[in-house]
């Protein structure tokens, strides 16, 4: 008989647990309503006659209610600023890496032209060098601009 009761109790608690988890944000009244809906009057009848399950339900509900009231700590502005500063450092190092790649490519191109191409033979050659230099300065400015923006953040 005891064994039969134990089985009933554990089954009722299983159902109550499911209801509690599915309605974690609802009130005790909702829980009672759900109890009626899910397993009809069987669970309610068992609860009326079983002190242990009544206790179990009350304790579990109180514990879950209390968990929702556990204090939540606010985050200080200092921590926020620290996170954003670290992000800015990462961004800046990314930009630096990119600018090094551009510099390396420019130097490689310069050496190639100097060693293998007769670029200074005519006025057009010198003109093309000036255009090339202008492009490099433009690229440099383009890279520097987002870096400044990221430092502001």
């Amino acid at each position, binding site marked *: 008989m005891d064994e039969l009761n134990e089985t009933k109790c554990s089954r009722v608690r299983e159902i109550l*647990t499911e209801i509690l988890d599915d309605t*974690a944000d609802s009130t005790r009244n909702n829980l009672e309503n759900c109890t009626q809906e899910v397993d009809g009057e069987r669970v309610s009848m068992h609860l009326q006659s079983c002190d242990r399950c009544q206790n179990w339900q009350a304790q579990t509900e109180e514990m879950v209610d209390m968990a929702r009231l556990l204090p939540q700590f606010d985050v200080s502005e200092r921590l926020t600023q620290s996170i954003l500063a670290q*992000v800015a450092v990462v961004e800046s190092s990314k930009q630096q890496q990119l600018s090094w790649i551009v510099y390396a490519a420019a130097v490689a191109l310069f050496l190639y032209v100097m060693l293998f191409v007769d670029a200074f033979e005519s006025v057009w050659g010198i003109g093309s060098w000036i255009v090339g230099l202008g492009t490099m300065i433009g690229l440099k400015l383009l890279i520097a601009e987002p870096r400044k923006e990221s430092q502001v953040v």
Partner: protein
Amino acid sequence: MLGSGTMWVKRKKISLWTMGNVENSKRNASDITAIADAELVGKTRAGDNKAFEVLVRRYQKLVYNIIYQMIRNHDSASDLTQDTFLKAYKALPGFDTTKSFKPWLLKIATNSTLNTIRDQKGQQSLEELLEVNPQAEPASTEDVEQEVEWRVSQHMLFDALGQLPIQQRKTFVLRYQQDLPYEEIAEISELSVSSVKSLLFRARENLRKILSEQLAVSQNV
């Protein structure tokens, strides 16, 4: 007299212009905070760090509190919160935009915390740390539960939570303190929904036992 009048008009114009700018910036700030995570992620990936700042401000409290409940130390929680956002920022280019940002971020936070706890515990393996905690499995307290009057305080629950195995504690906090749905907890923990339910069940039963024992002791003293 005329000069001072002109000055006043100019000042008025300037102050109106400044007010307009402040209003605009306020409107911009409120506009950007209303933007969905996915859009902010997209903007951050395109180089807009203001968008990432909004994400940081949106989730830093949640991340901090989850980490704090896991590690129970404010300094470590601050360090790990910072570490979480930095890792997220670096990993953002590889983030799958079809998925939600919040569970992804919380996965980074909880995994970093678990790794730190494992490092702190030294030789203890993560599996041991997650499941074996002698304090979390007290002797059967069925009889105690009947006799003890249940008046649980926040302080008692906080202490009892600290005695749970870390995985159970994390799941309990995510579900009941932070009110996250099962699906999100499953995604964060890389578990199935049924495993999450089973972890929650164990967490609640263990907590009830620990609390009953604590209440019995305090009522006997």
